[in-house]
């Protein structure tokens, strides 16, 4: 991102106010904060606008795979550490199927890929792509395998192809899906770059080490390819960490364009593959392609991605409101908790498990968990009572009012505030079903 001073240098410095700002400097400050566009100044030259676009483009390109709302965006990063600013585009994960497999085996792998989807904190954590690998070396086999995948997979896809001829056949048929074409290390980069550019599809290339990758990226760029994803060809964790760190620092700190692309890893399956994916998720990867992924590996990995890519400044929150769960009536229990997403969705899921209808009151604690909010003075009995008042839940039900176990301390005061008895609930939400059965029987 350019600074206010860099923008200021480009402006005519006449302070004519045509941009709506009192001075050119004031306008430059807005530009630096991305609150205005350079075009808003009618007096700035065309070349200056072009030059600025070039230098103010994010240091890492954004590449999109797939189309529509399911498209996966990669890259676009501006910072090295997430405390500086939220990371832009979450890393994507793919599993690969081989075109030497028969259709039932492919269907089974696709079904397994689809099953790697988990509802958590109001989002779906899922696998992003299926990759089709041209192990047969033949076009016909490849196209058949792609059809077998598409029969049941409507998220983005990618192709792993070494042979330009096969790639041409595949893109002629499927370019509209905007697949990522991943050419192996031995592939002819220039030919692949021309092909991908012609079909408007993103290209993945592999070269061993940062120098070789930068060279390959330059060749692809000369051939007109803008949407590039780089595989630095790391063969172990250390290379993965060091090379990806060098590439990303060179792009961001040194504005070194040839390495300013999303980074990817092609791994196998099992422990070491997952470890590589974990590292890549932390340090600058945008895509990891597996041979296979088990649910016990996928859930922790997807959770990690969500943790790393969440905005460090703003916890994910839900709205303060009354949430009826399972059609509650005039005697159903009333439970309450904070508006921190993680807390809300955990508690909600456990109430649902009990199959007992409940009125769940969410109290705005500015996105803090139960104890954090309580220690910060944002989950006081007064605040809870006010939320009850606002939703009118106490008139809707005369059922027991359940206090989260961790803040049992607030029971007396809350009972006084609302003029009703309260019951202390469990500390952990997983014990809610049992407790609910006890208090409703």
């Amino acid at each position, binding site marked *: 991102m350019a600074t206010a001073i860099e923008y200021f240098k480009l402006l005519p410095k006449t302070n004519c106010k045509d941009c709506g700002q009192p001075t050119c400097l004031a306008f430059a400050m807005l530009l630096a904060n991305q609150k205005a566009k350079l075009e808003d100044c009618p007096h700035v030259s065309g070349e200056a606008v072009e030059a600025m676009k070039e230098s103010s483009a994010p240091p890492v390109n954004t590449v999109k795979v797939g189309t529509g709302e399911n498209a996966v965006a990669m890259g676009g990063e501006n910072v090295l*550490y*997430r*405390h500086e600013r939220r990371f832009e585009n979450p890393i994507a994960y793919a599993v690969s199927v081989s075109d030497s497999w028969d259709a039932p085996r492919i269907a089974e792998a696709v079904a397994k890929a689809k*099953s790697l989807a*988990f509802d*958590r904190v109001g989002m779906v954590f899922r696998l992003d792509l299926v990759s089709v690998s041209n192990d047969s070396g033949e076009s016909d086999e490849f196209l058949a395998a792609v059809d077998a995948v598409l029969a049941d997979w409507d998220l983005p896809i990618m192709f792993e192809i070494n042979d330009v001829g096969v790639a041409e056949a595949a893109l002629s048929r499927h370019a509209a899906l905007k697949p990522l074409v991943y050419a192996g290390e031995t592939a002819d980069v220039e030919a692949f770059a021309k092909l991908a550019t012609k079909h408007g599809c993103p290209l993945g290339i592999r070269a061993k080490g*940062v*120098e*070789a990758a*930068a*060279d390959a990226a*330059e060749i692809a760029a000369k051939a007109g390819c803008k949407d590039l994803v780089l595989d630095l060809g790391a063969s*172990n*964790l*250390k290379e993965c*960490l*060091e090379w990806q*760190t*060098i590439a990303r*620092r*060179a792009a961001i*700190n*040194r504005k*070194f364009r*040839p*390495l300013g692309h999303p980074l990817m890893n092609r791994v196998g399956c099992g*422990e070491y593959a*997952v*470890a590589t994916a*974990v*590292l890549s998720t*932390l*340090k600058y990867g945008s895509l990891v392609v597996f041979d296979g992924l*088990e*649910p*016990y*590996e996928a*859930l*922790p*990995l997807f*959770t*990690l991605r*969500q*943790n*790393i890519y*969440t905005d*460090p400044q703003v916890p994910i929150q839900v709205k303060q409101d009354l949430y009826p769960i399972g059609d509650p009536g005039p005697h159903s229990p009333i439970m309450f908790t904070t508006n921190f997403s*993680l807390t809300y969705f*955990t508690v909600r899921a456990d109430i649902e498990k009990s199959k007992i209808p409940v009125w769940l009151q969410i109290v705005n604690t500015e996105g803090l*968990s139960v104890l954090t909010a309580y220690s910060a003075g944002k989950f006081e009995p007064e605040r809870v009572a006010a939320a009850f008042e606002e939703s009118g839940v106490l008139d809707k039900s005369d059922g027991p009012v359940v206090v989260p176990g961790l803040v049992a301390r607030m029971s007396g005061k809350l009972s006084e505030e609302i003029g009703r008895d309260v019951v202390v609930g469990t500390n*952990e*939400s*997983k014990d809610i079903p049992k407790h609910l059965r006890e208090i409703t029987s």
Partner: protein
Amino acid sequence: MAEIPSVAEKYGSKVGEVPVGHGDYVAGGAGGMPFLSFENPSKRRPMIAGEVRDSLVGYPELAAGMFSGREKDPADWAMMWKEIGADMIFLRLTGTDPSVGTTTAEDAVRIVKEIDERTRLPIMVHGCGVQEIDHEILPRICSEVRDTRLIVSCVEEEDYKRLSAAAMAGGHHVLAFSNLDINLAKQMNILLSDFGVEKDNIFMDPLMAPLGMGLDYSYSVNERIRLSALRGDRMLQVPMVCHTGEAWDVADATSDEPGLGDPAHRVAWWEAITAICAMMSGADLLVMRGPSAADMVRVYAEELAGGS
């Protein structure tokens, strides 16, 4: 081939190096961000401490089942950790709380000595969390165990004098706890220094929140702590300790909900990922619960450090 601009940072400062136990194990010493050989000449990987308890009350059954019955005797349990490859033993004396167990002060001292004699590994001792009891038992251990340098866990802002004094008198180290906040972490180290604890005797625990339960905060707090230390903040230049065992408390890590796969494998990844995040954000010592997670993390850390 293309020339890549140099990206090594010249930080100018490093984290202190602290010998523990009988002096043959050293923690800390990082001069750059973790495992980057182009800016961090230290090839040291983080130490791994295996958790041992004097009582199994409240300890997850799934974890207990991974120690082949040897978890029943603390010294034997510690030996098993050594066989797995741990560099240190973390002893949590939960049983000294009379509502949990029957461990007396004499028992506690004996357990520490036994672990030391059998494993010769450095030891970190943690109390039961009840202040009066910890104030009695931990100082006894500090004065009666003299030939190995312990890490006494842990001291907090409202309660650090008694334990720090006992640790100093016995020639041991203290672990300074703070709650997920760089300024609080620094404040603790200043308090301890002002109280007379040498910087070389302080470890800090900034509270590692596990995967899916606040790891996002911890990861960034740790990175900021480490960057500030490297950039010259002397009060943060002490080795960082992260506990990863809390990963076992996360519902998703151990639930037997169908479709999530084998809980034993899942919790191993849950803890291993928590530990990898801890070391990638600067941890110098990982306190771990599960043997398979500890094993994975040690192997990966060795490879990343590029030494052995």
